[in-house]
């Protein structure tokens, strides 16, 4: 399937999901579903760097928070302009901010992508565990910055008033957020899938396997890693941009929550890191499980589930659910066909 075909098909699936969800007439479904969708984007974004290139990022929460706080800045701008700028400029600022959610997503993606690029430049000479520690440090530094930045509410947090409905679509705001997130899921999955099948995807795979050999084959590894950190950061930021509208009140400890960093790693790991399907499967499975645990047991249990599942999968199926399936299907096919393997025709 070509990329645009895949995009259209998944868009159709997404719309079907949306209308099916509307049949239930239950807002909770959208609230819970939004979180699962957000994790699909986050997991897919993490996988672009972590799964394809093999660079483990522990700072996903930071990129997510950058997206969220970009939105907070936008919502604070009109009041700020009223106080500090001449009335004509203030009314102009007030008329364009805060922009609609899709624009906020693009802005959040831009800012987080730039931070990703910068982080990449500073840290990509580090490998393995050192890179992971550096990303963890980035998250801490950014959180400290936000806590001390009064404009976005500092440690007190910031309120973002969510409108009740979206007039031009005639749907509730939470349904709108759900819809926007669905589209973002489609965009991120399409991007991940396109990367996988492209020249870029081959380059990423060689970086994961062996950087020295990649360079010797002509792969500009540093440049490709920067592409990966930028893309990965941008999608994480996009996942975070609508979040203040979803949650209504954003504080640093929720935006930089442990759950984002842990889930962004656990979901691709559990689903499988080598293909775009892995993060999707992992996020749907784990996200749904967490939502169920949150309403039936307690919200603290949901993180426990992630931890247990992660340990289980790392031991039993290190290549995730997708790897598991591939393993069994390839065993079946080699059992059927006798050696040697078929030669590719030229």
């Amino acid at each position, binding site marked *: 399937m070509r990329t645009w075909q895949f995009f259209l098909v998944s868009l159709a699936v997404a719309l079907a999901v949306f209308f099916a969800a509307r049949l239930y007439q239950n807002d909770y479904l959208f609230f819970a579903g939004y979180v699962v969708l957000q994790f699909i984007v986050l997991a897919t974004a993490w996988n672009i760097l972590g799964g394809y290139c093999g660079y483990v990022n522990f700072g996903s929460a930071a990129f997510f928070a950058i997206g969220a706080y970009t939105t907070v800045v936008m919502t604070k701008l009109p009041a700020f302009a009223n106080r500090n700028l001449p009335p004509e400029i203030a009314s102009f600022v007030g008329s364009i901010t805060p922009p609609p959610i899709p624009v906020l997503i693009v802005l959040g993606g831009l800012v987080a992508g730039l931070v990703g690029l910068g982080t990449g430049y500073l840290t990509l000479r580090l490998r393995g565990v050192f890179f992971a520690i550096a990303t963890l440090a980035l998250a801490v530094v950014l959180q400290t910055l936000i806590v001390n930045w009064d404009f976005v509410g500092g440690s007190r947090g910031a309120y973002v008033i969510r409108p009740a409905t979206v007039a031009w679509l005639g749907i509730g705001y939470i349904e709108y957020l759900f819809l926007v997130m669905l589209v973002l899921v489609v965009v991120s999955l399409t991007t991940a899938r396109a990367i996988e099948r492209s*020249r870029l995807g*081959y*380059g990423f*795979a*060689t970086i*994961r*396997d*062996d950087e*020295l*050999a*990649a*360079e*010797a*084959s*002509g*792969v*500009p*590894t*540093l440049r490709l890693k920067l592409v990966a950190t930028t893309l990965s950061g941008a999608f994480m930021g996009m996942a975070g941009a609508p979040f203040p509208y979803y949650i209504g009140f954003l504080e640093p400890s929720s935006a930089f929550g442990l759950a984002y960093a842990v889930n962004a790693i656990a979901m691709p790991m559990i689903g499988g890191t*080598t293909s775009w399907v892995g993060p999707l499967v992992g996020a749907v499975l784990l996200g749904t499980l967490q939502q169920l645990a949150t309403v039936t047991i307690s919200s603290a249990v949901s993180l426990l589930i992630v931890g247990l599942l992660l340990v289980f999968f790392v031991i039993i199926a290190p290549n995730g659910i997708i790897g598991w399936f591939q393993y069994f299907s390839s065993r079946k096919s080699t059992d059927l066909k006798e050696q*040697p*393997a*078929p*030669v*590719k*025709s*030229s």
Partner: protein
Amino acid sequence: MTEPLLKITNVGKRFGGFVALDGINLDVAPGERLGLIGPNGSGKSTLVNCMSGTLHNDTGTVTFDGKPMNGLQAHERTHMGLARSFQLPRPFHSLTVAENLRVPLLYTVRIRRDVPHTKDEMDHRCHEVLSLVSLQHKANRLPKDLTQVEMRKLELARAMAADPKLLIADEAMAGLSGSEVKDIVALLIRLNERGITIILIEHIMAAVMSFSQRLVVLVSGKMIAEGDPQDVIRDPEVEKAYLGQ
């Protein structure tokens, strides 16, 4: 004499207080088969790394195809036509054998030709290179399914897929049996006959002697002898380095 393809002038490299390479001068003519030998730790691999850009030399210059390469990254040197194989095979283990060869096609040959390969062209070229090293039947296997000698062949094939002018084979035969060594030497000579200049770094003397037109000996980061292989191994300095006094 024609302009050398590779010109190494006064190249030096230190690791802290240890002098790994000390003012190496070496010219390699186009189409030549050069053997590079030396005891363990004599700086052979460091020299290879300085040529291919994995390490950067502290002093001197490496000139390839008339262009100075100081400061160029390894991938840029590969783009210029300098390919290497690694001492220990470093295949891309998550890609099949054919896909391993596709990487240099996508990233090196692609740069030189402006137009992307069609899928057929790509498959054809992969098949061609694989048949050169007789690995066609393993095209769709993963590197982990290969034997040691096949792994070495894949390593050479991947370097070849980049369509190089100069191939540096870093101990391509270490750990192989006698017949496998002959196999690889024959392969390298075949490649050379196609016009590729080859530098062979090797410990197995039988292989070096049957392959090389010229032999260079490194000891403790210095070049102590160079010339006709038969003369070089009779050089008292070389005997001293290898056998002790």
